[in-house]
């Protein structure tokens, strides 16, 4: 179980980005984290995986516990060893490496052989096995996303953080990625899914959090979020029934959350 309590993050000593974020990711679940650009989703993930440091960010308050162990003061390698894996936004595969080398780097923290773990990844992503000797930088976007996910899985994390896995992918590939996330979860990995594509995220998640301006403004079971009026208005789109914004005054367009 991953528990975040009252987390506050400051960049460059002055910019307060997260203001008291709390959330819980129970073991074995998929939790979706939604929010507009700049809401602080990626910052939250960086705080979880210990990558704030290189962005000149700092946790100034609050705690993060992974399976009961505090990890808010640990560095990135320690956190990976503790069983938290992250797939960075924008895939970030090692472009000049082959597919297999990418996967081997993913298992850096594991002692002993990696072949078994890599074989498991190939089972999940057969296309990667076909392209194991190819240069990763020349794979398609969807394949690169799969490679980035596979690379994180080689470390066999207890919990996997996915930062916008649907970014820039065609709808059909997004559906494929969605199925794979569900499959990863079925195999026993807890997933924290950050997404702009709320429909996709909520359709597989158990629970959803909505972030805005560095705060959690709403948290409900995914099914309820899908039905929520405001969420439908702001994140899902309503097709025919959508309000026409032309007739609404500008100041009304932005939702102010009561929190």
């Amino acid at each position, binding site marked *: 179980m991953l528990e975040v309590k009252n987390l506050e993050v400051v960049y460059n000593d002055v910019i307060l980005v997260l203001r008291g974020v709390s959330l819980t990711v129970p073991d074995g679940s998929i939790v979706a984290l939604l929010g507009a650009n700049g809401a602080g989703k990626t910052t939250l993930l960086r705080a979880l*995986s*210990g*990558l704030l440091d*290189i962005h*000149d960010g700092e946790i100034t308050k609050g705690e993060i516990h992974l399976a009961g162990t505090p990890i808010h003061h640990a560095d*990135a*390698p320690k*956190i*990976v*060893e503790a069983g938290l894996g*992250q797939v*960075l936004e924008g895939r*970030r595969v*090692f*472009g*000049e*490496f082959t597919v297999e*080398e990418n996967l*081997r*780097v*993913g298992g*850096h*923290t594991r002692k002993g052989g990696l072949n078994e773990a890599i074989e498991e990844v190939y089972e999940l992503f057969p296309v990667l096995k076909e392209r194991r000797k190819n*240069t990763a*930088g*020349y794979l398609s976007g969807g394949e690169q996303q799969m490679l980035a996910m596979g*690379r*994180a899985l080689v*470390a066999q994390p207890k919990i996997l953080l996915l930062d916008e896995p649907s970014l820039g992918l065609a709808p059909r590939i997004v559906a494929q990625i969605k199925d794979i996330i569900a499959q990863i979860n079925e195999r026993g990995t807890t997933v924290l899914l950050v997404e702009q594509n709320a429909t996709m995220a909520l359709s597989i998640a158990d629970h959803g959090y909505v972030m805005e301006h560095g705060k959690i403004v709403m948290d409900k079971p995914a099914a309820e979020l899908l039905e929520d009026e405001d969420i439908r208005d702001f994140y899902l789109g309503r097709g025919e029934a959508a309000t026409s914004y032309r007739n609404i005054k500008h100041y009304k367009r932005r939702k102010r959350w009561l929190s």
Partner: protein
Amino acid sequence: MTTFFQAVLDGFAQGSIYALLALGFVMIYKATLVISFAQPALMVCGGLFAHHASRVWDIPFWPSLAIAVLCGAVLGMVVERLALRPMVGKPVFTLAIITIGVDIALRVLANRYMGADPRGVTYPNGGRRYEFLGLSISHQRLGLIAVTIVTVIALALFFRYAKTGLAMRATALSQETALAQGIRVGTMFALAWAIAGGLAAIAGTFVAATGAGIEQNTWIIALKALPAIIIGGLDSIPGAVVGGILVGLIESLTAVFQPDVAPWLGNNFALVAPYALMFLILLVKPYGLFGTKEVERV
């Protein structure tokens, strides 16, 4: 014809020194994107470590070489830890300037140690030369070529198959992504400097063992590694080797043939020749012979 092959052989041996030094440059550049101007000082210090082990402690050549490599590696790590680690995240230009400072500081210390006398290293069968097909090569230079070949192969295998080698390459490509895989980036930087220091120590030891030994101005030899890495491509390990050898060859061939073939170029053109070659290659291949442009999908 014999003159030609003799020049090639000599150039190859001299090029091995440049190749070892160039490999050190590339190692640091790949890991940290810093061009380290501390390489000359590391070479001189490495040579002096070997000298101390060989002449003061009376240790045979090969163990002396091992001691020099070890001390060179430690020195590289100390430089990284004290001078460069505190500056992580600062512009690489600043870091490059710092390495110039490190170079000067280390050389002052080295000069203080060696004083006015050249410092050599005792080599087994030092004076012997091998003769074949009319060519002749000294025992030291043969050893140098052999050691260079073994080192290059070992490094290539390390970067291709070893977990740590792979992690170092990953760090060079993207520090954040490497961190997210659980790689200790700081350790990788230290390792890059250790390898560079060790390579410079091998070069320094052989400089001390062949020719006149290490003197106050021997460090200038190491500057030849600069055209070598630019010819080969800043970020390419095979490029560093090929570049180093090419610089050695061009220098030796010009020294032998230019006075007869093109006397109008003046005396000592051999010193300039590597830079002329660098200029020509940059005109045709701006990234160097083996330098990689970014892998990019179009």
